[in-house]
């Protein structure tokens, strides 16, 4: 067993890294799962998986995309296990009202509800781009899509949200 002080230091750094990235991971999981409690479980399980596989992270600066990929896969596994067949989005919105409400800006709550109603194929690239700062090429790599397919999804996602928020989009940008 080789567990010298170098290994301990590395593990301590890894733990600190996971802790500092946890809010981002939780936010990402929340928008994928649309369920706060489930998102917490997914992130917890993902961090345990990451902990066990930490030796495969060779470059610490790549920790965030590495962890996001683990969270994404864990989300998919969770939904496979749960075998969720139908989802009533209005029920999800009502259940997560405390998370979606925005006391400071009333229409943010409405926009968050619209995000909940966005199909996952649009929601996921949008969250990666806007919240996680991914480029189109990075999203394409993560989701195994072509660049043009990512652009189309991002464009449609925004159009749907703007339409849901009552903005006029038909004349200025057709899908």
């Amino acid at each position, binding site marked *: 067993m080789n567990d010298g002080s170098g290994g301990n230091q590395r593990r301590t750094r890894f733990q600190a890294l996971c802790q500092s990235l946890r809010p981002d991971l939780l936010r990402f999981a929340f928008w994928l799962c649309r369920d706060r409690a489930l998102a917490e479980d997914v992130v917890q399980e993902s961090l345990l998986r990451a902990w066990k596989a930490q030796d495969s992270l060779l470059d610490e600066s790549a920790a965030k995309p590495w962890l996001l990929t683990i969270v994404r896969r864990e989300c998919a596994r969770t939904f496979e296990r749960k075998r969720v067949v139908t989802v009533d989005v209005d029920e999800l919105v009502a259940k997560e009202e405390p998370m979606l409400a925005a006391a400071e800006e009333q229409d943010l709550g409405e926009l968050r509800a619209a995000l909940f109603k966005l199909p996952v194929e649009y929601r996921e690239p949008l969250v990666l781009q806007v919240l996680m700062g991914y480029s189109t090429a990075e999203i394409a790599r993560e989701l195994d899509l072509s660049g043009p397919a990512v652009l189309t999804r991002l464009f449609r996602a925004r159009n749907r949200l703007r339409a849901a928020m009552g903005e006029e989009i038909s004349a200025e*940008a057709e899908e």
Partner: protein
Amino acid sequence: MDHARYRMLIGADPRSSDPELREHRESCRECQLYTERLLRFESRLERALRVDVRAQTHRPASWRWMAMAASVLLGVVVAAGIWAVLPGASLAADVVAHMREEPQAWRRTDVAVPDAELNDILRESNLRLGAAAGIVSYASSCAFRGHQVPHLVVQTPSGPVTVMVLVHESVSRLTQFDEQGYRGTIVPMPGHGSIAVLMQNPGAAQARDLQRIAAQVRASIVWTR
């Protein structure tokens, strides 16, 4: 590039700094206005996605997470102790923590936040920004230590620089910090709190520019009250 192509591409990535998009935008007033509308929506979208995950937890953490957390605790306590003895360090820590919450703000772009939107955000803190500050590519009113504060990203030749105007945080002297990949400075603004100016993962040359940029930003702030 025609209008339809421009609107598709900018609709997919409103903060894109693609030179072809910029060229079209600069030659087409309609598409300029279209982009401004998109950017206004984009700011709302960014705020909407940034849900507060520190809010109530729904269930206690399991033993496995607690075991992991316990082993982290000692390190955190030691780090917090060291941090606490440094003057102004806890304010710097909170600023850095806030930066980590908004990674999307750091994108390198030449697309400016529309003036009306920027002015609305700055007005809440009774200030405006002179043109000398540079291109403001991101502006948001953020909750910080119980107050709404302007969080701006200014594009400079040394890369994107974040500015937080902290009118409620008075500091007695200028402090510098280097933490978790962020190099920053907190500059006193007598009678108006302080400003925090940060760079993310700067190279040595960029880091040397920090104080000059901070001074430039400080000089471009005009207090309206």
